[in-house]
């Protein structure tokens, strides 16, 4: 059965550009099916034997994703140190007449990047989960679903054909349902799982129809065949390319929680925190971005209208989700809306034709966002509440969580030298240079908002006075060590793609069966305008956040106690200096000047700050309650209620009288016979 057929091998499908000789990766790529198979086998083993194991199957789960991480890292080095691996392997599974069923996997730069990201982030989350789920009600079920989740994502990213991609896609959906509803004893948790599943399913209709149209047009489900047609500018494919692209993107919108399918993601926070970390960083939500990137040549060459749709959807999502994040009190919800907003950046980047920038943000975001989630989980673990009003002042009690969280926040806010800075800057540069001024300013504005809500989250959580119950203490090493590992990624991985200096990441993701010309624009130098706009926005956001939550009336008392000690030495020093001038110069004129400054301060500066703050919060509230709760949620609730009403009426058909059923049975059979008879004569 193991007849690994070399399909593409060292393939060059260069269209115009200079041909780059790629290696087929040898045994390393030919054995990459293990990456997919090992998690599935582990899932099976955990299901069967997990309960009898000392750690309830967690050891198997960690071993499986650890294997994936190691394999992914080896592949990453193999492809970047060599000429780049492009390989498609296939195992023939069955044969029906002329139709062959095979399990095919693709090993190229894009999938290796995903193997690495999924593997490493999963390993961190899994190790963390071992500590987080200590004493959980059903750890075996959790680890089985969690491993299945990782395996499904790997199946999705390794898929060489669309059917396999769809299988992975749906398995991700199923396992996310299991994980979100892990604590199903509370109804809202299982409802959240169902909501995620159903919203995804609705979007999947688009994906499925898109796949069918693509396969009928091209005559093959294999992605590389479709890409060949794109390169050849096949007329038949060109006719329907926009339809296919839009339908595939609808599927991607569901998984990547783009407006208007974003409603499931905040509710998905009902799952245990390691799930949120993995789901919102490396897996599931990145699936849509991955799909768009995988099919990118189709969008770029044949379906530019669809690319505009991608850009618009991404831009809408990044703004509305960012605004929503400001008014949330649940720390995981802040991060969830933040994830939405960052996914908006990725999608919009792809829509603007910046293939590398979008994927690079996916890559860096995977590390710092999972880090933030794990940090939030660590806090929740200590405080036993998701609510930021129950937190505060935790930086003393949880120093490791605090510092790693700070690194993640700075990376998210786009502060220079942290990973998020480089990726966000490249996206903003792409908007700027791609001639999308509106999207560019929306992106800059959201950079400001991002910095604002992260400052808010950090100050409410780690500064001020502790407002919860009990005494919080630092999480065990099994939870903090994975966070530190991810923090290293959030610190360093930005340097993999500094425009004009390093192109490691660019070289990696363009290592594909299609030539780099088809894979969008790539910045080769800094766009200093975009850089400063983004940076200024980020710093302003932090400043305003500091200012607002310093002035926040509800927490004024705690804030005073926090900030006066911090500022005290500075004030005191000033006094020493001022003391020198005080009696000579200052005293005669200090009264009017002080009054004037005080007046300016309280009537002009505060006024501006308060107006901006109130406006931003009001806008956030409006989007949350007006658009999100009343508009989108209402439509979904009404659809549900309608189905329920129809069901309550239709059920009376089921009378329980066997003979009525039998009349319908025989009558139906007769109708079929007569219909068939008519149709053949």
């Amino acid at each position, binding site marked *: 059965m193991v007849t690994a057929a070399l399909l593409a091998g060292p393939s060059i499908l260069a269209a115009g550009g200079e041909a780059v000789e790629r290696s087929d990766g040898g045994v390393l790529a030919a054995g990459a099916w293990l990456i997919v198979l090992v998690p599935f086998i582990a899932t099976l083993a955990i299901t069967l034997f997990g309960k009898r194991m000392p750690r309830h199957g967690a050891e198997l789960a960690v071993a499986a994703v650890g294997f994936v991480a190691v394999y992914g890292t080896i592949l990453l080095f193999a492809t970047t140190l060599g000429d780049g691996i492009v390989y498609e392997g296939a195992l023939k599974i069955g044969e029906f007449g002329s139709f062959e069923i095979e399990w095919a996997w693709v090993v190229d730069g894009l999938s290796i990047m995903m193997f690495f990201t999924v593997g490493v982030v999963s390993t961190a989350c899994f190790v963390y989960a071992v500590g987080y789920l200590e004493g959980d009600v059903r750890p075996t079920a959790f680890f089985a679903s969690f491993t299945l989740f990782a395996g499904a994502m790997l199946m999705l990213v390794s898929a060489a054909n669309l059917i396999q991609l769809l299988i992975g896609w749906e398995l991700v959906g199923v396992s996310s349902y299991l994980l979100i509803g892990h604590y199903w004893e509370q109804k809202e948790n299982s409802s959240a799982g169902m909501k995620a599943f159903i919203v995804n399913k609705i979007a999947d209709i688009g994906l499925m129809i898109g796949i069918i149209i693509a396969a009928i047009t091209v005559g093959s489900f294999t992605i590389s065949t479709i890409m060949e047609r794109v390169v050849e500018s096949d007329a038949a494919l060109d006719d329907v390319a926009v339809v296919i692209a839009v339908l595939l993107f609808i599927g991607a919108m569901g998984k990547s929680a783009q407006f208007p399918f974003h409603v499931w993601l905040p509710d998905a926070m009902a799952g245990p925190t390691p799930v949120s970390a993995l789901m919102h960083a490396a897996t599931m939500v990145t699936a849509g971005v991955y799909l768009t990137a995988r099919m990118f040549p189709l969008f770029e060459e044949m379906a530019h209208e669809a690319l505009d749709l991608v850009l618009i959807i991404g831009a809408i999502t990044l703004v509305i989700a960012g605004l929503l994040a400001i008014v949330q009190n649940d720390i995981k919800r802040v991060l969830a809306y933040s994830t939405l907003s960052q996914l908006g950046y990725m999608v919009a980047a792809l829509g603007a034709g910046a293939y590398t920038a979008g994927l690079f943000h996916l890559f860096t975001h995977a590390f710092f966002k999972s880090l933030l989630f794990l940090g939030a989980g660590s806090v929740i673990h200590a405080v036993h509440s998701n609510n930021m009003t129950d937190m505060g002042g935790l930086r003393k009690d949880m120093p490791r969580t605090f510092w790693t969280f700070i690194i993640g926040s700075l990376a998210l806010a786009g502060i220079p030298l942290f990973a998020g800075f480089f990726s966000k800057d490249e996206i903003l540069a792409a908007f700027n240079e791609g001639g999308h001024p509106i999207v560019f300013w929306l992106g800059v504005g959201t950079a400001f908002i991002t910095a604002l809500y992260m400052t808010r989250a950090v100050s409410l959580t780690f500064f001020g006075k502790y407002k919860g119950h009990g005494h919080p203490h630092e999480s065990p090493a099994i939870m903090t060590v994975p966070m530190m590992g991810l923090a290293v990624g959030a610190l360093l991985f930005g340097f993999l793609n500094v425009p004009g200096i390093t192109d490691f990441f660019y070289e990696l993701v363009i290592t594909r069966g299609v030539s780099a010309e088809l894979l969008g624009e790539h910045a080769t130098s800094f766009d200093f305008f975009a850089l400063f706009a983004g940076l200024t926005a980020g710093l302003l956001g932090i400043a305003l956040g500091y200012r607002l939550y310093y002035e926040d009336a509800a927490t004024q008392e705690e804030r005073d106690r926090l900030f006066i000690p911090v500022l005290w030495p500075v004030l005191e020093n000033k006094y020493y200096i001022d003391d020198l001038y005080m009696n000579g110069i200052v005293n005669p004129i200090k009264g009017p000047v002080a009054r004037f400054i005080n007046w300016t301060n309280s009537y002009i500066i505060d006024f501006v700050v308060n107006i901006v703050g109130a406006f931003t919060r009001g806008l956030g509230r409006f989007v949350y309650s007006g658009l999100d709760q009343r508009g989108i949620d209402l439509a979904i609730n009404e659809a549900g209620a309608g189905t329920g009403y129809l069901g309550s009426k239709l*059920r*009376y058909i*089921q*009378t*329980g*009288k*066997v*003979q009525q059923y*039998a*009349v319908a049975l*025989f009558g139906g059979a007769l109708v079929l016979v007569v219909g068939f008879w008519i149709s053949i004569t």
Partner: protein
Amino acid sequence: MTIAQFLVLSAALFSIGIYGVLVRRNAVLVLLSVELMLAAVNINFVAFGRYFADSAAGGQVFALFIITVAAAEVGIGLAIVLLIFRNRASANIDELDVLKW
């Protein structure tokens, strides 16, 4: 003799059996009607066996199989009817509507 006359006879028996199955309240009588339908099928098998001049008598063998299976069916069917009667003091199937909405 034409083949059609046997098929029409069989169709008549089968339809009468269907009527009985659909209209009888008592489970024993429903089973009786099912026997009528089986008899109709048997006639079809034997007649087609002749019509295709099957020297190995496949049609007749299948009629025998049907008779055997019918015997088993009646045995089990009556046992179930008996059980229902014991539990509900009635063998009327229109009163067995526990599975409604």
